[in-house]
Every structure is written in structure tokens, then in C-alpha cells.
């Protein structure tokens, strides 16, 4: 029915003419008002579904574009939520009864629009709880060892084990077995356990890998970890190849030293020579080398000649107990031709390097006030308390 038809219908009587005129005017002003108010609001961002734990808070948000002032009203399960009259609605201390659809009605002078439904889901369970933490393990080289964790949960659990902070592929149950343990497997392990309500990370458990018992150091060598090392070092010799496994973060400055030391008594003057055959780590704070050390205490005076993790020849000394160190770099040497030597003559000790074991270059000479009887030997530190380096020495000539 168009406007002229409407007027004709009511034009039969004079009274009807007045009524028709009034309706026309009303419709005219309504249409005119619409034209002034502009369009209804347009939602640029709909509220999204939420999944939260029981007792937590959650917020729904809507974003709207409009050319005139807006009013909001949020609804839950179709019922108006008292006081929920902004573009953001926060539900605190969420309970199971709060789960369901939420939407918001937005109005401006041009009209009204409803958002889509956003569903609030409430998780009634809690994150997993670890009832039995994985414990430190010590494994002989080549053996198998297993870490176990036990957790309680009201819903299904997922596990992921990590070594040195890196995810272990396929290690996704409550037990993890390290098969054929090598020195490179030594370090911290933990597991992340997840259920629908959250996740928890276990305590870190350390795997120590020890050499098999038939691999020993020949007399008069003994070995020990110097300083507080997180991973236990070890050493053994087979056919004049000395393998030294050591960890530790510090072997410089005034800090307490951390390394594994294979040593014997050095009564007075003497010398020590060795060829470094391999170095497993590349940390610039890691070293494999030979050392003359006054004592096995952590702040002892020492001098060493060795190979830094980046391949550099380094000589370093600490001339006074607890003092700082002084370092000198030597020439570049290939690992296949990496020889080092220490020579003690009274109070002077020199650190030398060589590419062939015959022609030697002095890297550092320093004066010490060490006791007469000191120690000398091989050492390895990884530069990282969580890593155990495994380095090999040969052609060792010890003249105490």
C-alpha cells in the first residue's frame, strides 16, 4: 500500500480526511527522522567463545562502528544481565551455572543490532598434580636408565619430556628411558604434564653418566671434581688415550673454579706435556687442557694451557689464591695437531703450545709463590653446569 492509496481510503468522510492527514504527517516525520539519525550500528568485532577454569574471571568484548551514540545491553541465555551496559562484559568467579551463550544488543539513534552468540565454557577440573617427581639417575656408559613421573588428574593427561630445555621427540608418556646412555646424555631432564584445566612442570632430574668400571685411571693419576659441579665428572685411560669428562661454569676470575681434574703430586720442578685429541663442546667458556695447580681447593693458584671451546690456544694463570686470572692467547692450531706443555722452574711456570710436539711457542710465563709440592694434570670444563664435555688426551709426558 503506497501513501496516496492510504489517503484515498480515508478520504470518504470529512472526519476520515482529518485522520488520514494525521497519519500522513506521522509517517512523514518518522521517515524524516530516520534520514537525520543515520544507519544502525555495525559490529566490527564480535564477542568470541571463552573456555575458563571454575572460579576464574573472563571478559567478552564487542567492537562497534556508529555515527551516533551507542547503548549496550548484554544477555545470557536470552535474559538481560543487569548492569552489563558497556562494550565489555566481565564475569568474575565463573561458576558452572554461568556456562552458556552470551550476546550483546547495541542500539543507536538509527536502530539496534545483536551480536552473535559467544559461548562460555567452564572447566570444572584442576591442573594436574605431581605426586612423584622424577629423581636423579646415574647410569654407566652404554646402559639404559629410566625417569618416571606420577601425576594425578581428574581428566586425561598428556606428557612431554625435555632434556636441557629441549623437547625430546616421542617422549610423551609418564616414563622416559634413555637408552645406551652416552656422556652427551648427561644433564637435566624434566616433564611437562597437561590436562584440560592446565599444565605443570616437574622438578628437574639430573642424569649422570659414568664410565664403565673396567675403565680406570692408571696410577699415580687420581681424578676429582674441583668446586661444586652439578654433573659428576670422571676419567679413564685406554691404550694411552685419556678420556676426561667434566662440567662447570667457571675457570676464570675470582670465582670458585668448577672442572674435572686428573692429577698427581708434583714435588718441585717438572713438566707436563699432552696432545689434545678431541673436544666435545664448543662453549667459549669450556676448556680442555693441562694444569699446574697449587691445591685442589676452589680458589687455588694455577696456570693452565689448553684449548678453548672455539678452538683457540689459551694460557691462563691465577698467581694468588682467590685472585683474578690473566689470559694469553696462543697461535691457531688444528685439533689434529694441538699440543700443550707446562714447565715449572722454581717460581716460574711457562705455558707453551705446539703444532707438532717438537717446536714449542711460549704462550705465557708467570711468577708464582706456590708451595713446593703442588699438583699437575689434565682438566676439562664445559663452561656450562648443565653440560658434561668429554675430551680426549694422548701422548702425555709427566715429569714430576
Amino acid at each position: 500500500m503506497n501513501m496516496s492509496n492510504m489517503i484515498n481510503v480515508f478520504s470518504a468522510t470529512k472526519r476520515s480526511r482529518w485522520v488520514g492527514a494525521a497519519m500522513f504527517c506521522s509517517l512523514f516525520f518518522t521517515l524524516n527522522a530516520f534520514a537525520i539519525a543515520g544507519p544502525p550500528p555495525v559490529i566490527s568485532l564480535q564477542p568470541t567463545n571463552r573456555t575458563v577454569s571454575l572460579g576464574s574471571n573472563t571478559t567478552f568484548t564487542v567492537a562497534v562502528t556508529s555515527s551516533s551514540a551507542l547503548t549496550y545491553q548484554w544477555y545470557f541465555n536470552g535474559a538481560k544481565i543487569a548492569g552489563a551496559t558497556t562494550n565489555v562484559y566481565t564475569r568474575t568467579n565463573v561458576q558452572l551455572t554461568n556456562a552458556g551463550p552470551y550476546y550483546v544488543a547495541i542500539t543507536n539513534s538509527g536502530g539496534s543490532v545483536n551480536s552473535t552468540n559467544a559461548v562460555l565454557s567452564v572447566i570444572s577440573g584442576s591442573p594436574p598434580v605431581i605426586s612423584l617427581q622424577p629423581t636423579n639417575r646415574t647410569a654407566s656408559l652404554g646402559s639404559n636408565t629410566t625417569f618416571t613421573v606420577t601425576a594425578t588428574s581428574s581428566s586425561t593427561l598428556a606428557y612431554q619430556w625435555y632434556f636441557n630445555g629441549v623437547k625430546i621427540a616421542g617422549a610423551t608418556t609418564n616414563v622416559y628411558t634413555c637408552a645406551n646412555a652416552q656422556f652427551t646424555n648427561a644433564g637435566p631432564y624434566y616433564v611437562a604434564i597437561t590436562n584440560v584445566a592446565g599444565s605443570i612442570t616437574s622438578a628437574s632430574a639430573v642424569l649422570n653418566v659414568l664410565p664403565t668400571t673396567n675403565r680406570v685411571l692408571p696410577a699415580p693419576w687420581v681424578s676429582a671434581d674441583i668446586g661444586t659441579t652439578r654433573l659428576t665428572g670422571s676419567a679413564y685411560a685406554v691404550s694411552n688415550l685419556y678420556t676426561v669428562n667434566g662440567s662447570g661454569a667457571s675457570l676464570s676470575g675470582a670465582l670458585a673454579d668448577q672442572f674435572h681434574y686428573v692429577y698427581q703430586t708434583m714435588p718441585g720442578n717438572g713438566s707436563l706435556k699432552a696432545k689434545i685429541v678431541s673436544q666435545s663442546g664448543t662453549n667459549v667458556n669450556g676448556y680442555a687442557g693441562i694444569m699446574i695447580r697449587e691445591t685442589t681447593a676452589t680458589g687455588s693458584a694455577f696456570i693452565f694451557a689448553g684449548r678453548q671451546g672455539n678452538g683457540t690456544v689459551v694460557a691462563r694463570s691465577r698467581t694468588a689464591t682467590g685472585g683474578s686470572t690473566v689470559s694469553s692467547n696462543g697461535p691457531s692450531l688444528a685439533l689434529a695437531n694441538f699440543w700443550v706443555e707446562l714447565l715449572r722452574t722454581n717460581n716460574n711456570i711457562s705455558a707453551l703450545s705446539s703444532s707438532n710436539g717438537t717446536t714449542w711457542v711460549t704462550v705465557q710465563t708467570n711468577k708464582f709463590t706456590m708451595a713446593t709440592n703442588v699438583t699437575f694434570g689434565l682438566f676439562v670444563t664445559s663452561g656450562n653446569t648443565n653440560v658434561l664435555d668429554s675430551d680426549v688426551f694422548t701422548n702425555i709426558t709427566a715429569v714430576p
Partner: protein
Amino acid sequence: MGRTIIWAALLSLALVLTWRAVQPDIAPANAPTPVDPAKIGTAAVDPASSLSTASPVDVVPIAAQPVPIVESSPAPEDPEKTAAVISTMTEAEVCNGLAKLTNQDLPGNTGRLLLRRWVELDPAAAIDWVAQQGDTDVRQELVDVAAIAWSQQDLPSALAWVEALPEGGAKPQALADLGYEVARTDPVSAMEIATQLPASDSANGLFLHALSQCASADPGTSRQLALALAPGPLRDQALTIVATVQAKEDGDGAARFAVENISPGPDLDRAVMGVVQLWAQNDLPDVSAWVQTFPDSPIRDQAVQSLGMFDTR
């Protein structure tokens, strides 16, 4: 109008930030008070009471004006550069450097070096400051650092200070560390220190180290001391050390001493190999003859191999 208010607010904020940037840093609660250079070296210390409690009384002389930290703060990533910078610091610079460190950082490389430098400049003030550290763990570490540093310039005073500390806490470790310093000149006293310490690997290590120094200076006394120990691993290790050191001068006597006194096992093997290495340097024929008497065993093989090295030198 509105724009004027916004600009005024921004200007005020900028002024506040600029003012804060030019203010001197506020020292942490545990920082040493900067020292008046005129009073350096004058602080008195009572060793007996210096570690009893964290005293609220600041015994370090107070300077009229705070001295700013040196501009050339050492780079923490290079401990040797740090040491070089700290080695030339004045006492006031050291104090301000320590004031910049948190409790967590104090036992680190920079903290240790600053404290060592302070001990070098004014040991009495330095150890008093150490005694006032409220954190027990930090204080224990710093006591050790200060004791060693002090011992390198005045061993008797350092020893007196540590011996006067309350039992437990930092005392055993500091005493053990000083024992190694004592061992250089007076190994018998160092062994006495070791026997005062609670039984531990640390105490045994000091005893054996001091015994080895004694073995060079006074072989007879060291033999008696080692033989007087109760049978067990420590005695065998002590006898091994005595035999090895003796071999430098008297291979034949050291060989007999080892075989007659050390229980068969790893320590005897170490003693035998130590003697072989040292005796071979003076008398290769005699030591070779001795090795020929060994029964077939891994230690005989090792000894023969070791002599081969000397044979070709």
C-alpha cells in the same frame, strides 16, 4: 584550551623525568658508606666481635660528600678486564662499586674483586663491612674472600680474625682456606689447623697438602705424622704422599717405605708409580732393577712403560 592542557602535562612529565635522570643513584641499604680518604686505614677492629651480629652501627668513617662511582664501570662479561679496572681503584671508588651491587651480586666476580681491593687498601674497614652484612650466606662467602685476601698481606692477622669468629658458619671454610696459605711456610701449623676442623674432605685435603709440604722440608717428621694416623684411607693417602715426595731425593728409601707401610691397593700402586717416575730421573738403572722384581701385574706393565719414556729422553 584542551590542547594547552595536554602540552602543559607533557612538559611537566619531561621535566620530572629529566630531574630524576640527573639525581645521584640512591645506594642500597647494605652499601658501604663512602670513605673519607683522609681516614683510610684508621678504622679499628675487634676481631672477636666482628662477626657476632649484623651491627646497625656504621663503623666506617662517613665522608662529607658522596663520591660518585667511577665512570669506567668494568664490563661484567670479561672478568680480567674487570680485575684490571678494580686493581687501580681508590677506596672510595671501591666502596661505591660495592654499593652498586645487590646481595645476589656481591659474591660474584666483581664483588669479590672489589672486596679484595678494599682489603688491600684498608683491611680493618673491609672486614668490618663484611661483618655487617645481614644476609648470612653472603656474609659467609665474603668472610672467605676477605680472609684469603688479608692473609696474602698479613697472614697472622687474618688467622687471628678467622680463629676469633663464632664456631660454625663461615669459620671452617675460611680456616681451611687460610690453612693452605699457612702451609707454604709452616706446614706443621697447617696440619694442626686441619685437625681443628670438623671431619670432612676439606679437612683431609688440607692435611694431605700440608703433609706434602712438610715431606719436602722435614721428611722425618712427615713420616712420623703419617704413620701415627689411624689405619684407613687417610693414612694410606698420607703415606703415598710422603713416599712420592721422598722419592725426589731418595728413591730407594721411598720405595722401601711405600712397600713396607702402605696397604696393598690403589694407594700403594700410586705410591709405587710416583716413586718410579721420580727415582727414574736420578737413577734409572736402580729403579729399573727394582721394577724387574715386581710380579706380573698391571702396575708392573705401567712401571715398565713409564721407564721406557725416561729411557728415550
